[in-house]
């Protein structure tokens, strides 16, 4: 399962309409617990995750997985993309793409419906769910394929405290099962609760990486120290 690591980014640069979005970025990610990508708005967190997941084109550099298997990583977007289908069909969709047997799909979907607390709502149109329920559904849909790596782009940005805690609990359970969670956030509290490793980004560049506890206790850069204090960093 962990044969995909390390993930290596060499001198990766992304530009949009001539404007530098991230780069050059050099980063190596190995196995481990939740990795939290932090940084202020516009620092390039989302782009970095999208680049790693392969949904964003790079203009220079290279990205190498130890073993390339696009179906082995999943992505949860900041605004959950909910398909115009029922809750059941939303969850079944990734498995149908893999042409899994009907029984297996049904079992997996029912398991996840229970897990995210949407029992008896399998036939409900997913568009009728609340914001928190939608994000949990999007997370379950990403996890139903049992990915080795799960990317999350500020999944709790628009959620209240309760929904945020529920998502965090799911992520912690996921990390325990061996899925590498790589998540972006600018919420320091959430980062402290979840992170085992951190990547701090600023102005499209990686400013600090390493073990979360030591980074929080002894930041290597003045910018990360300022970000932790809640100061405005540019």
């Amino acid at each position, binding site marked *: 399962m962990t044969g995909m690591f390390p993930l290596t980014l060499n001198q990766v640069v992304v530009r949009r309409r001539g404007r530098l979005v991230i780069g050059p970025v050099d980063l190596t990610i190995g196995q481990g617990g939740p990795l939290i990508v932090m940084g202020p708005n516009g620092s390039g967190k989302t782009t970095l995750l999208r680049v790693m997941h392969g949904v964003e084109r790079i203009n220079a550099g290279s990205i190498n997985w130890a073993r390339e298997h696009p179906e082995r990583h999943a*992505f949860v*977007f900041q605004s959950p993309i909910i398909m*115009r289908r029922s809750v059941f069909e939303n969850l079944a969709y*990734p498995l149908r793409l893999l042409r899994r047997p009907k029984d297996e799909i049904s079992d997996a979907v029912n398991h996840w419906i229970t897990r995210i607390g949407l029992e008896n709502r399998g036939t*409900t149109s997913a568009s009728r769910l609340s914001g928190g329920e939608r994000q949990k559904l999007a997370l379950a849909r990403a996890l139903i394929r049992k990915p080795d790596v799960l990317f999350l782009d500020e999944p709790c940005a628009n959620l209240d405290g309760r929904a945020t805690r529920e998502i965090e609990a799911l992520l912690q359970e996921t990390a325990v099962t061996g899925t590498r969670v790589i998540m972006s956030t600018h919420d320091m509290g959430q980062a402290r609760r979840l992170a085992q490793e951190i990547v701090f980004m600023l102005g499209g560049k990686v400013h600090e990486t390493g073990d979360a506890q030591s980074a929080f206790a002894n930041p290597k850069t003045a910018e990360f120290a300022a970000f932790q204090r809640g100061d405005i960093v540019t």
Partner: protein
Amino acid sequence: MRRFLLVFFVKKLNLYLSGSKGKCGTFMFELIEGLKAAFRLVITFDPELWEISLRSLRVTLTALLIASLIAMPLGTYLAVQRFRYRRFVIAIINALMGLPPVVVGLIVYILLSRSGPFGVFNLLFTPTAMIIAQVVIITPLIASIAHQAMRELWAEYHDLLISLNTTKAQRIRTLIWDGRRNLLTAALAGFGRAIGEVGAIMIVGGNIDNVTRVLTTAIALETGKGDFALALGLGFVLIGIAVVVNLAIHALSRTEREGRW
């Protein structure tokens, strides 16, 4: 100013009605007679009316099915796929929406006539020729509406479907299924255009009794003969069919919204 215009309009209307009571009375008489004729034709199960109505439906629904099978995947493909002349193709499809049906009829006539390239198939003045003409008329309309709807859905689903590493075919299938309500609307627009079409099918069908006569061509014929009551009667039946189909599709859309299919 607005008040002045309103008074002016009311005065003019009164003047018109008082001066043309005879014309207005004739019109109302014909309208009522038309309604009566329609009612009589329907409740007596008039065989000719049923035959014409069923032929109208058969021709239109067949054309709609064929046009939908071409236009919906085409509209979706144009939403999903980027290629060099994509914008040009979209512009052409949009332009073809305004094709004059008479011109389409003329072109199909030339193609299917004995001296034309498809003359060997002997299709002129058959329901098949009418279906071909209707397909040509409504395909761009359905493709254009489908493309608009699918473009919006693709913008919504883009990241998810790319993230799930889907193939082009899987993306198109997913968009068609999830956008089925919008596609139903596109089909409805195509149906409305096809069922009311008269120019092209008159040319390629010939309005032959018991063979190619449909509601619209029958209305044109009866109007020409001066039988306004029957023409109006047929017209009301045509409107009735359009309303019933619209209501059926509306009901289908509602059940879809409720997640029943």
